[in-house]
């Protein structure tokens, strides 16, 4: 048995949640979910999750627990991602002030009374001496593993390929699992997912305004915003306007391809023996073999009950992209092509893609 840290990375909407659920079935593995998705405010404030220099325990706790503007806005307007599992009916936090680790991570570990665990963690972490952020993260995850009687932690955050360079720097000893899925299905899913829609929408707003509307009240270039971007500024935001925002699958296809190309480049820094790339489609079609590969790679005991429980989590989902119209399919495929090309270079192909 190993106690080596494990980092799961992917573009998001690529099946990493399923992988996380499978990890959670293993008695020796602590599945830590979505820490970097939410501490970076959906990938839009990456620097705040990885501050430079030493920070006190209290400052690190602030990284983990300060509510983030985009998530707070979404939740305030009733726009809740499936990844957010905080039990509102039992907890004390309100939608406008939910700490990042309370969105998914803590409720996953203690679904009954996450507030208690949150308070215990706060008391503990705030006592820590100053240290670089990677030291804090490592200690935080290791302490959690010990608290729950696990040997090894596995962190998995949706869309973490965007921060893979930071993760590899922070955890050079980690085993890295890269999960990939057909870009067409990934992109289509992104175009409908609240978190990705928010992240991409904000990117457009930032470019049109010249400032981050969540960080600055300057609106000099407001006239350059299309109506859909103006209607979704923080001060104008409504759930209806957010749902009206038109995010074509092909645009997400370009995004997916970009994430894959730059992510693979960043992963070149990981020693080959420390990197495992899994296809989501293999996880679904051949879960037992694929989970066994994962277990062997990370040094976990490959138990038959674990494999069976993991396989039972799989739902037989067909690809959704073929339901698009022909021209939309073609446009989506063209958009994804650079990503497919890059994946082919590392030996990954999809049978129904040229």
């Amino acid at each position, binding site marked *: 048995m190993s106690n080596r840290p494990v980092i799961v990375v992917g573009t998001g909407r690529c099946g990493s949640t399923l992988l996380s659920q499978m990890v959670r079935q293993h008695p020796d593995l602590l599945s830590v979910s979505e820490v970097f998705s939410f501490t970076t405010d959906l990938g839009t404030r990456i620097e705040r999750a990885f501050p430079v220099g030493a920070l006190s325990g209290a400052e690190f706790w602030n990284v983990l627990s300060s509510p983030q503007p985009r998530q707070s806005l979404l939740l305030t307007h009733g726009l809740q991602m499936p990844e957010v599992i905080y039990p509102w009916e039992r907890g004390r936090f309100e939608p406008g002030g939910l700490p990042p680790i309370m969105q998914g991570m803590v409720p996953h570990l203690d679904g009954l009374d996450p507030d208690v665990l949150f308070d215990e963690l706060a008391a503990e972490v705030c006592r820590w001496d100053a240290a670089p952020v990677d030291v804090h993260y490592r200690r935080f995850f290791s302490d959690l593993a010990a608290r729950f009687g696990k040997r090894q932690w596995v962190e998995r955050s949706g869309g973490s390929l965007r921060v893979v360079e930071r993760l590899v720097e922070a955890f050079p000893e980690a085993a890295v699992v890269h999960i990939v899925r057909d870009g067409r299905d990934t992109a289509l899913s992104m175009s409908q997912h609240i978190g990705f829609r928010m992240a991409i929408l904000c990117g457009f707003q930032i470019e049109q305004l*010249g400032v981050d509307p969540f960080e600055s009240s300057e609106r000099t270039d407001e006239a350059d915003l*299309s109506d859909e971007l103006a209607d979704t500024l923080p001060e104008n935001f409504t759930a209806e306007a957010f749902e009206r925002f038109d995010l074509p699958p092909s645009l997400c296809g*370009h995004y997916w391809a*970009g994430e894959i190309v730059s992510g693979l480049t960043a992963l070149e820094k990981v020693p080959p023996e420390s990197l495992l790339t899994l296809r989501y489609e293999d996880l679904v079609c051949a879960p037992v073999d694929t989970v066994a590969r994962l277990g062997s790679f990370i040094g976990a005991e490959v138990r038959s009950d674990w494999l069976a429980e993991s396989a039972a989590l799989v739902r037989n989902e067909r690809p959704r992209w073929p339901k698009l119209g022909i021209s939309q399919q073609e446009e989506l495929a063209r958009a994804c092509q*650079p990503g497919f090309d890059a994946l082919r270079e590392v030996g990954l192909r999809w049978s129904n893609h040229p």
Partner: protein
Amino acid sequence: MQQSFSRVPVRRARTHVVTGGTGFVGSALILELLARTEGTVVAIARPKADHSPKERVEQTLAELIEGYGLPSHLHEAVTTRVIVIPGDIEQVSCGVTAASMPLLRGAEFWHCAASLQYMDRHREQIERTNVLGTTHVVQLARRSQSPMFNMVSTAYVAGSRRGDIPAEQPDIELVNNCYERSKIMAEEVVLTSGLNARILRPSIVIGHSRTHHSTSTDGLYGFIRNLTKFRNALERTQVGLASTLDVSIEVHTEGRVDLVPIDSVVEDAVGLSNAGAAPGYYHLTNSTPPFVKDAVIGCFELSGLAAPHLVSNRDTMSEVDLKLQQRIDFYSSYLINPKRFDRSSVEAVLGESARSGTDLEGEAFLEYCTWFLDKLEGGSRKLAAVR
């Protein structure tokens, strides 16, 4: 080529009242009036952000004398012949106090102040500034017993009309947006006021023909700025995408887009005044504007985008093309509805001395774009997509 702002003053010392004196056209007009008339120029301006109206106007004019490469003696003319009075066109009689009224008596008015916004969501503000504001300036001109009211409108009140555009009353049903609608409504306010009025209609005004300097961020510059932002959005989506993505844009490939340098506009405008031109419509446009296709391709390339496919309709556009189209929709009407503006009313008055714009075919046009992009990139607030 004739040089703007450089002629010897020829008209008697009539006072001129200018609104919008810190704006693109109004400020250039003041300098032209200083250069070519002998009278006092009264600028009506608002205070703003810790600057008095006087400070704003004088600072704007001082910068433009340098930016346009004008004779330095104009600095002294600004000091001695420009009177700035506080006012706001959104107030009755522009909020000009009774004490200031004697300064305006018998003056020729130049109404340049306007909102250049065009989105429907800004409609209320646009109409407040452009229509109600014009009503207030007209009130003030009548109280001042103004002998002539020059209203700076836009040649693009022609809306979606194509081909030869006579200088006449436009059809409000053909407007493309609420900006054009507001300018037609403002023209109507002036024409029904009982004042002697010239409706001056510049096309898309760009920088100075010699230095390319511009204080405008609208029109051509808004188009370029939005292309640049689109490029940045593509790069944020995928590094390298902007220079590789095939984008289609809807244009009329044989048409021209009427861009006219600021010095041409004010030279013709003051020329009409000095010549005592009759009330009526005047197109202050360019006889040799660039072709739409050349302008669009040039703007794309200078903005760091791959050369676009020029298409005649949106039927074959991709989802990403339509996103771009959404961003530049305001400019689209200039690209798909080519116009040739009839300048005969200007030429009938000015004859040989009519400026007729500047030849903007080929490389000449790109120099204006490059000047603006240098300025834009120099002051860029672009935020990197952090990884």
